[in-house]
């Protein structure tokens, strides 16, 4: 039950920083706002979480546990019309309800859509410096999964000859071929173990990272994404 990682999920929105601030004001009271350079705003706070466990002797004797639980939502400007919204939590279940509640506020109170963002890992792989890449998870449409660690990717054979491709429809039509479903990276000044999933999820395997360190890693990840989006719109 104790946190082992920080989890972040990426969304795309047209919301301005003003809407972002107003929506989060509606969701949480007394949160702290921080700005990083000109394009990132972070609203963060702590939830007072009560933990209970299964019905066992320990729980009966010790009862529940109160835990000071970090949480944040980040707004990052992409261009004049688009921004990224990044939800951060120590637990996946908290992230699920945070994302649902805040997304609802954006959509119902401000009429702004919030769409999940997919990471283009194939293009991300091309950009990765060798010392950053710790491994990868490969998946195909036969439901096979392969995990490679130590930065060694499989040779360019028929199964693996499209790893830099992000067109999932192509893989659906060629179900034996593998695509990148996760990248295992070392990011930030502390070379934090990081898992980047195609479905827009980032897992940082260090729950004690400072907010500034997290923002630094987010800039690294955004480098990968912005390259993907430039390619897509080109």
């Amino acid at each position, binding site marked *: *039950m104790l946190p082992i990682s920080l*989890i972040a999920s990426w969304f795309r929105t047209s919301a301005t920083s003003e809407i972002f601030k107003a929506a989060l004001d509606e*969701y949480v009271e007394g949160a702290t706002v921080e700005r990083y350079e000109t394009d990132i705003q972070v609203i963060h706070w702590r*939830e*007072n*979480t*009560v*933990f*209970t*466990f*299964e019905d066992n002797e320990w729980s009966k004797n010790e009862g*529940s546990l*109160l*835990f000071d*639980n970090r949480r944040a939502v980040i707004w990052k400007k992409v261009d004049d019309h688009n921004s990224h919204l990044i939800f951060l939590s120590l*637990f*996946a*279940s*908290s*992230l*699920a*309800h*945070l*994302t*649902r*509640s805040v997304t*609802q506020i954006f959509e119902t109170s401000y009429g702004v859509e919030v769409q999940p963002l997919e990471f283009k890992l194939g293009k991300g792989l091309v950009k990765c410096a060798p010392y950053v890449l710790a491994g990868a*998870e490969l998946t195909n449409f036969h439901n096979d*999964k392969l*995990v490679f*660690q130590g930065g060694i990717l499989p040779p360019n054979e028929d199964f693996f000859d499209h790893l830099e491709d992000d067109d999932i429809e192509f893989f659906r039509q060629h179900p034996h071929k593998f695509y990148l479903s*996760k990248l295992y990276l070392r990011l930030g000044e502390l070379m934090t173990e990081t*898992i980047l*999933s195609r479905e827009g*999820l980032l*897992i940082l*395997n260090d729950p004690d990272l400072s907010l500034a360190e997290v923002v630094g890693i987010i800039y690294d990840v955004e480098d990968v994404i912005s390259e993907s989006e430039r390619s897509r719109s080109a």
Partner: protein
Amino acid sequence: MTTYCKAKLSYPTPKHLPAVDLSAEARPCNLAKGSGTHTTTISNHRSGSIHNIDICVKAKAKAVILDGKPGATEYKHGCASIRSGMQYPHSFPISVNAAVPSQSDELVTGISFNGSSYTDTNPGQAESASIGFTVDLI
């Protein structure tokens, strides 16, 4: 759109979890007379167990006290695993928070779990989902 008193997430509702059903409800639905119970039920229809289950409940307006602890803003419960074909219900007490005057509140329930315990070489990521419903407080 938020439902009233209870909510369920299962196929074919959008964002459902594959072969895992989630439901949550409050009884009574009107908490004006004092206390009630929040129950989350997870049904595992998969061929194998699911692991590291985490249930998380938050009262959006903080107008509901979770598990008798007025200072808590979020309630969490952990369970090691749910076997194939089994249902896991979990309940805890809820009551009106007189310090936050409100006619109603939305209780949002999130869950997360791992579809496999083979995590040593593949840390993977948890599957997660959330549902919400409103309760009356007057």
